């Protein structure tokens, strides 16, 4: 696919800090990233639910779109309403393909004189190529000299606010540019853990000092990609490549809320035929939360059956939920079985293990509205 696959994994500006802090480094989407630190995934997860955790997410793609009509043009390849997005506001959306599947999910912010996008690490080359091919007259600039650091948890407001008072009064899905320790940073109040928090775009040369300053706060500690995954799973947030991909539609994935009224009425995005039809008539399968009744985790790929042994679908994400203190999964099931409270069987290593369909999320989201 891309030439980055054949080269050595890339390192973020925080690589040395990860190693210093005991990070267990793994290859993730072509980047050497910490899956956990010495505290372990359970403790790092709890840290984010109870206090504040710091994640390096610099492997994600940061992109600026500039030029006349960039928001309107972007609407031709995403189904969210971008043009009316007020300055300083961020919105979740996805690139759809002509079949109504999802090519990647992303956050778009109105940064005033440009749009600021954050896309998945594994998809950044695809996404930039896709935008270059489809957004005529839009200047597409990938920011390769900025780190991205997430501070997540109920104490994130204190950790970030101590260094940047302007961040304190921000609300969920708002974004500002503000000074942190002499560096001009883009601070967005959002995240991928279900908790209140921020994602902060920092010039590379300031990334270590600012991250260290966050970590110096008593209520703040590092967290790795392992905790990031268990946190987002408990919060019922989709992971691209697992829960959503080129074959799943946003309606099947229960992302209806991310397609605003005007776009539903007007269409005009790839795959609108299928997506608008599913919005009107309902999809044939749905992404649901699945709670195994026993202790065994049911991971990606596990078959879901009804109690008569008929296949209903497959698990797309699953593991152990540290806050739930038990196994948690998400998966697609045929719509006639997607009823909260319905008991299904999960086929784990050949054995049928009972599980219950639940309403997502497993852990209540805790955003600053």
């Amino acid at each position: 696919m891309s030439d980055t696959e054949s080269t050595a994994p890339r390192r973020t500006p925080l690589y040395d800090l990860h190693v210093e802090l005991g990070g267990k480094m793994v290859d993730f989407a072509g980047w050497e990233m910490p899956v956990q630190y010495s505290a372990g995934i359970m403790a790092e997860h709890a840290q984010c639910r109870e206090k504040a955790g710091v994640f390096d997410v610099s492997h994600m793609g940061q992109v600026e779109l500039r030029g006349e009509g960039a928001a309107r043009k972007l609407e031709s390849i995403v189904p969210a309403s971008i043009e009316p997005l007020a300055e300083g506001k961020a919105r979740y959306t996805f690139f759809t393909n002509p079949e109504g599947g999802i090519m990647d999910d992303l956050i778009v912010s109105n940064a005033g004189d440009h749009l600021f996008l954050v896309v998945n690490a594994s998809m950044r080359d695809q996404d930039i190529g896709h935008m270059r091919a489809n957004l005529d007259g839009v200047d597409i600039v990938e920011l390769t000299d900025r780190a991205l650091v997430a501070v997540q948890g109920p104490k994130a407001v204190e950790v970030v606010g101590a260094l940047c008072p302007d961040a304190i009064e921000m609300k969920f899905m708002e974004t500002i540019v503000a000074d942190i320790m002499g560096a001009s940073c883009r601070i967005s109040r959002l995240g991928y853990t279900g908790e209140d928090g921020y994602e902060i775009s920092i010039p590379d040369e300031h990334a270590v000092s600012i991250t260290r300053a966050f970590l110096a706060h008593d209520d703040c500690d590092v967290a790795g990609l392992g905790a990031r995954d268990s946190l987002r799973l408990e919060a019922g947030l989709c992971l691209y490549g697992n829960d959503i991909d080129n074959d799943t539609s946003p309606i099947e994935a229960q992302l209806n809320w991310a397609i605003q009224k005007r776009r539903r009425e007007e269409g005009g995005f790839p795959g609108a035929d299928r997506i608008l039809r599913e919005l009107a008539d309902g999809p044939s399968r749905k992404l649901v939360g699945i709670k195994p009744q026993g202790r065994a985790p049911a991971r990606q790929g596990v078959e879901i059956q009804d109690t008569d042994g008929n296949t209903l679908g497959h698990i797309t994400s699953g593991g152990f939920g540290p806050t739930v203190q038990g196994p948690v999964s998400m998966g697609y099931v045929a719509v006639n079985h997607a009823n909260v409270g319905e008991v299904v069987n999960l086929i784990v290593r050949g054995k049928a293990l009972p599980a219950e369909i639940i309403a997502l999320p497993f852990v209540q989201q805790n955003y600053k509205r």
Partner: protein
Amino acid sequence: MTTYYSEDHEWITVDGDTATIGITAHAADQLGEVVFIELKDVEDEFEKGDEIGVIESVKAASEIYAPVDCEIIEANNMLEGAPGSMNEFAETDAWIYKIKITDAKQLEDLLDEEGYKAFIG
């Protein structure tokens, strides 16, 4: 009693024709925090290399393999209620099975402590 190690990161402490087996502390550390252990039944018989259980950590599922041909004579039921003990006591209280060895010659293919230490570098 002599303790041997396999390249699949199991230890086996032999006492006559029976033995106690478990996973090494190194393996437990690599797995991360253990959250679930699936064990086979007593009296089940296995050949060397057969899967004899599964350890699920917060990160992934990993199989346990029979280090020698054996019959299970006791499973450590404590692990069901306290899978996390695997991370602290992998080579003591968190043993997995007591087995009857059915082909003692296979022990010669295993590593001694020094050999295992060299293997994991």
